């Protein structure tokens, strides 16, 4: 998974964001750069979160920005982002995240495969610790080893 992030240039590292909306846009930027998504895609994600709350923060420190398939998406892929400072989604501080994996999907089977790998990887607390410590693409590649 991390090898793909690095090979596809689907990753970015940032210090932090004052507004979670900017974090979503930054997390999506590499997918926009290679045409996997349109510039509307991050805005669809933001709209949903504004409507329903920060349900994309699925576990402590982990956010998986995604919107409905078929709108503003041209491929099935994932894109990684890490921030040094937690991005705050709600005032209560219960929805802070430093690890972001944007999901984009047009193909169901490939998307399910991606999700299974992602959910397995992020369920491993030791791997999550290593991701939180990562600062460079080389650090990401070392996690898979």
């Amino acid at each position, binding site marked *: 998974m991390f090898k793909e992030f690095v090979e596809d240039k689907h990753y970015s590292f940032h210090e932090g964001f004052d507004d979670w909306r900017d974090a979503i846009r930054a997390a999506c930027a590499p997918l926009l750069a290679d045409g996997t998504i349109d510039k509307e895609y991050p805005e669809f994600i933001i709209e949903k*979160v504004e409507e*329903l709350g920060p*349900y*994309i923060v699925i576990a402590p420190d982990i956010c*998986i920005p995604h919107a409905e398939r078929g709108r503003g998406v041209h491929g099935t892929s994932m894109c990684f982002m890490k921030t040094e400072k937690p991005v705050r989604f709600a005032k209560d501080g219960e929805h802070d995240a430093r690890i972001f994996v944007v999901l984009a999907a047009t193909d169901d089977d490939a998307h399910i495969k991606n999700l299974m790998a992602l959910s397995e990887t*992020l*369920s491993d607390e030791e791997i999550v610790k290593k991701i939180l410590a990562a600062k460079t693409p080389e650090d990401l590649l070392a996690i898979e080893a």
Partner: protein
Amino acid sequence: MLKVIAACGSGMGSSQIIKMKLSKVFKKLGIDADVYHTNVGDAKSQANNYDVVFCSASLEGQFAGTKAKVIGLKNLLSEQEMTEKIEAADLK
């Protein structure tokens, strides 16, 4: 057979992760369950035909007034939290 909905905002990310994790946990607990994943709007309109709805804790409020049991999860990746909540709700 326990009829279960896993719901999230879009029906394509978190709800599928909930479904994957739940299926594993139900199997471990020996509970025969059928898990359907979808978005909140669809889940709301269908919830009364199901026994239980699982969703992210931040979406729990969306299901006020449904007959189905609603279980909000803080950590969608935690099989332990799912197990505890399934046992506390006495699902079988």
